[in-house]
């Protein structure tokens, strides 16, 4: 079977990779530059002075943004409009309630299973087998 002629795009991409590869003079220069930049960034990333500078600037920017968000919420309060914090509080309450209902329903299932087991034993029969994995009784998402 004749080999398919590579597309123009394939040749361009491969050519670019080869041109900047370690075999060519341009590639050797590129690799050297890459090594140099990597070394420089590694030194910068480990420099206490640089990290403290960037960390300080980031913290100031974040605190400014936090203050802006707080000012926004105070403004919304003036107009008796709900704020993001209040919506988060509500979501948290909803999640708590949902978790509590789930826990209660699980406890209820355990109670029902225990009741069925004791009823079966009281009637002199075998205890009912627990629902098999994957059956409709157990295989349901919350």
């Amino acid at each position, binding site marked *: 079977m004749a080999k398919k002629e590579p597309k123009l795009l394939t040749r361009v991409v491969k050519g670019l990779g080869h041109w900047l590869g370690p075999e060519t003079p341009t590639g050797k220069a590129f690799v050297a530059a890459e090594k140099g930049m990597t070394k420089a960034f590694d030194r910068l990333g480990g420099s206490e002075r640089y990290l403290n500078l960037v960390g300080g600037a980031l913290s100031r920017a974040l605190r400014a943004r936090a203050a802006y968000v707080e000012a926004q919420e105070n403004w919304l309060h003036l107009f008796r409009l709900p704020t993001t914090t209040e919506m988060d509080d509500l979501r948290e309450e909803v999640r708590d309630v949902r978790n509590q209902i789930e826990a209660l329903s699980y406890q209820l299932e355990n109670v029902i299973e225990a009741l069925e087991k004791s009823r079966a034993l009281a009637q002199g029969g075998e205890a009912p087998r627990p629902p098999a994995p994957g059956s409709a009784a157990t295989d349901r998402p*919350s």
Partner: protein
Amino acid sequence: MTTQSTTARLRSFVEGQIELSREILHAAQKGSMSPYHYVKPFLLRAADVGEPPLAPTPHKVVYTNGKMRLLRFEPTVRKHATPILFVYSLINRYYILDFLPGRSLIEFMVGQGFDVYAIDWGTPGSAERRMGWDNVLNVLVKNAVKWALRLSGAKDLTMYGYCMGGTMALAYAALHPQGLRNFVAQATPVDFHEGGVFAEWTKPNRFDVDALVDAYGNVPIELMETGFSSMAPVQRMTKWLEVFRRIDDPDFVTTFLGMEHWASDNVQFPGEIYRQYIKDCYQYNNFCNGRMKVAGQTVDLSTIKAPLLNIIADNDTIAPPKSSEILNTIVSSTDKEIMRFPVGHIGLSTSSKGPKQIWPKVAGWIAKRSDPWTET
């Protein structure tokens, strides 16, 4: 060459260019920082490959709570009664554990006859902003364990934590040892003061995590991406040259694009748990030293007695070996082992060495400590 075929070729070329431009514009509109979104359209066409077939193992969603989903990967032939529950990190998506066909840890374990479950944390949003350790460990992970045991019909399971997922799973195991048969910690940082560059960057005197969470709620994707890119900013760009050189190797291109897809599939980090994670782990190392508290209860790793397998990647820069090794000296397990492999952090789940050298050993360790499956 007929006029018709020239016209058809021209039309095909123009349509292709329009489609390409549309994809790149879409990426730019979304504000994608990763070069993946801009380079991928060219590479797919140049290499004549389709989208990487990520997360190939069939599964069912068996439990949900908010954005969290518990996935079940049922084996065709079950050999082990003790199921495996994968707990992945809140950073990036779970499917790194189910990477590509033939290179999927989950697929491998299912093939070995394990009933496998995995927690998919989903894409956190505003509703997850206030979620802390208590909610994650005492509700979500606890329910995942409960449902995995219920559905598999087992009395205990093997908990398998990866990276931050391993940290969370260890905290869970210390608080709730019931139902845990074995524990596997893969590339799991424990001593965060040996946490490499992240430990340096998040020191309390230079990283105000409270300001970040108060300002944004959930940690924005851009900040997460910037953090990881800053580890190797030059290689982030130059690694693409390797795939350019090997553009006529479709397997290599597919694997590379699959990895880049996952790496660029960032999600927001829920704010409150980020605050607690940074403080309890990176800044004050409370997790390692038994000072971390969850809903008033102390997380004491020395209470863990289950058989422990600690998998360490020798070339790991995210969870350096020194940060993981200490685990075996802290737990009270009598049956404990360290397995080391010459790969990186992600390589433990995606390397070509996985199915041949790494996963058979791990599966063998787990199988030896699992009950055999008997049909009833």
